[in-house]
């Protein structure tokens, strides 16, 4: 991934046209609705958030592999920070700092060349980092000679690193693959469409609650609708991964359809257990970073390992 390759990549340019078109069309629809006197102020706020996020995402991918790895690491760090601030783990700067270092180590492992195989991205180190970081986190109470409340803090730090750090950082490692543009852009777009489909299908057909104790607004109908939409998307975006066979497309659609909703539910029960509405307020109209990337976290590692198993990640 480089600027030159992005300019020559039909995949990147196609996605640029798709998101530009969707953004322009949505803006026009909102404009028409405003002219006809509809109250769309809250949707405008969300739309303004997209107007900032989409150019940021497309710009980062345009800049190339390094920018993507750094960008994913920053999202993981700030996402974990939201989790740490929501749970109270942030008061412990040793553990929080150690998780930050772990996430930086993941970015370094994604960036450097594998010393044995000579490929970009040190896969072995990336996959073994959870063991090292979890081990280091467990040592902190011993170093500080402290026991009271340490199990909770250590458990939160390990979950924070594995979930928001390691699982999400697979997205950065995908920048090392031959089909990086297709994989990354497909995941970003398909997961967002899956989110919107779940919301829209739920609004239109929703009757039965999916998990009423976790997220009362989600419905079984919305969930099934989102899976159906997500099963169609890979066929429409087949140009992203021309080497995929039809059954790979079905699998890819299922990963996004199911994984996206699982990621959403995980953040929902974390928020409900803590007793907060949003994980932050950094993106106007969208809540925190985690409220935006929650669906990606489950999808990315499953997609990564399925692709690796079927095609390899070079």
């Amino acid at each position, binding site marked *: 991934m480089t600027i030159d390759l992005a300019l020559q990549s039909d995949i990147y340019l196609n996605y640029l046209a798709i998101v530009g078109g969707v953004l322009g069309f949505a803006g026009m629809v909102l404009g028409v609705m405003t002219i006809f006197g509809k109250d769309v102020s809250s949707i405008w706020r969300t739309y303004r958030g997209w107007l900032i996020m989409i150019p940021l995402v497309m710009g980062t991918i345009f800049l190339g592999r390094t920018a993507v790895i750094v960008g994913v690491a920053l999202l993981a760090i700030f996402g974990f920070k939201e989790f740490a601030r*929501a749970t*109270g783990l*942030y008061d412990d700067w040793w553990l*929080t700092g150690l998780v930050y270092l772990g996430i930086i180590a993941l970015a370094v492992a994604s960036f450097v060349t594998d010393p044995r195989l000579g490929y970009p991205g040190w896969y072995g180190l990336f996959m073994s980092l959870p063991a090292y970081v979890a081990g280091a986190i467990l040592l902190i109470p011993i170093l500080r000679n402290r026991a009271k409340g340490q199990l909770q803090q250590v458990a939160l730090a390990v979950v924070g690193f594995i979930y928001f750090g390691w699982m999400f950082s697979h997205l950065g490692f995908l920048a090392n693959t031959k089909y990086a543009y297709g994989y990354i852009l497909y995941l970003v777009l398909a997961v967002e469409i899956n989110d919107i489909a779940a919301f829209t299908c739920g609004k239109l057909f929703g009757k039965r609650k999916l998990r009423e104790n976790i997220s009362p607004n989600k419905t079984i109908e919305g969930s099934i609708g989102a899976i159906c939409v997500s099963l169609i998307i890979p066929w429409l975006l087949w140009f992203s991964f021309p080497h995929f066979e039809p059954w790979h497309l079905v699998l890819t659609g299922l990963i996004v359809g199911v994984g996206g909703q699982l990621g959403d539910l995980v953040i929902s029960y974390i928020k409900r257990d803590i*007793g907060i509405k949003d994980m932050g*307020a*950094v993106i106007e109209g969208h809540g925190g970073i985690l409220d935006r990337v929650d669906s990606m976290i489950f999808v990315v590692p499953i997609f990564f390992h399925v692709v690796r198993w079927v095609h390899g990640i070079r």
Partner: protein
Amino acid sequence: MTEWEYHPAPDIDETMAEHLRNFPRQPYMFMYALRSMAALLLRGWMRLYHRLRIDGREHLPASGSFILVCNHTSHLDTLCMLCAMPLNKIHRTFPAAAADYFFSSLPRSAVSAILINALPFDRQVNGAESLTVCSHLLNTEGNVLIIFPEGTRTTTGEMQRFRSGIGRLVVATRLPVVPCYLDGGLKAWPKGKLWPRPYRLHLRIGAPVSYEQLDESSESVRKICHDLQSRVAELGEIAQ
């Protein structure tokens, strides 16, 4: 099994702009790191560009809270006083800064909050409320407040009358006050100039003064203001 207790940060629903403008601010690791780096760079810049000399550092109390007051000729006053503080205290040192100027936009708020650790002081409408915020801040042992009792920068070089706020704060908190005088600020960065010029600066720190024996009457407030003003002026005469 007993339930875990979570302690979400109180500012979790605030946007970035609100994080920066609201006070007291929650401690942020990135903010501390950036501020520490900025403090180091600032010390280097002051030494090289302005050849800053600081006399009387030994007067700064080693522990406990206190108030630093100084004449106000330019933005360099705050920066010089921050340079006088030990590096391990910069996160506990809060220069009171005019909210209508230093927190008027997001970039200014970011510089004021992250790099300077400024306390937004409302000098126009809610002055009394801002003084209460200062009092609360100083209640925490080890916090240091930098305040310019003249209220605004002088354009003539003449020190202006000390406003009553400093007196009210001192009688309310009963904390020691350290008077300071910065010489050269007006020449180096006069009001209205975009960028400072490389003139020498000389900061003189006086001995701490305690007003514990005074009551909370308006007469005491007036006395404190007058006494502090003359002490700062005295330091000025020595510095020049």
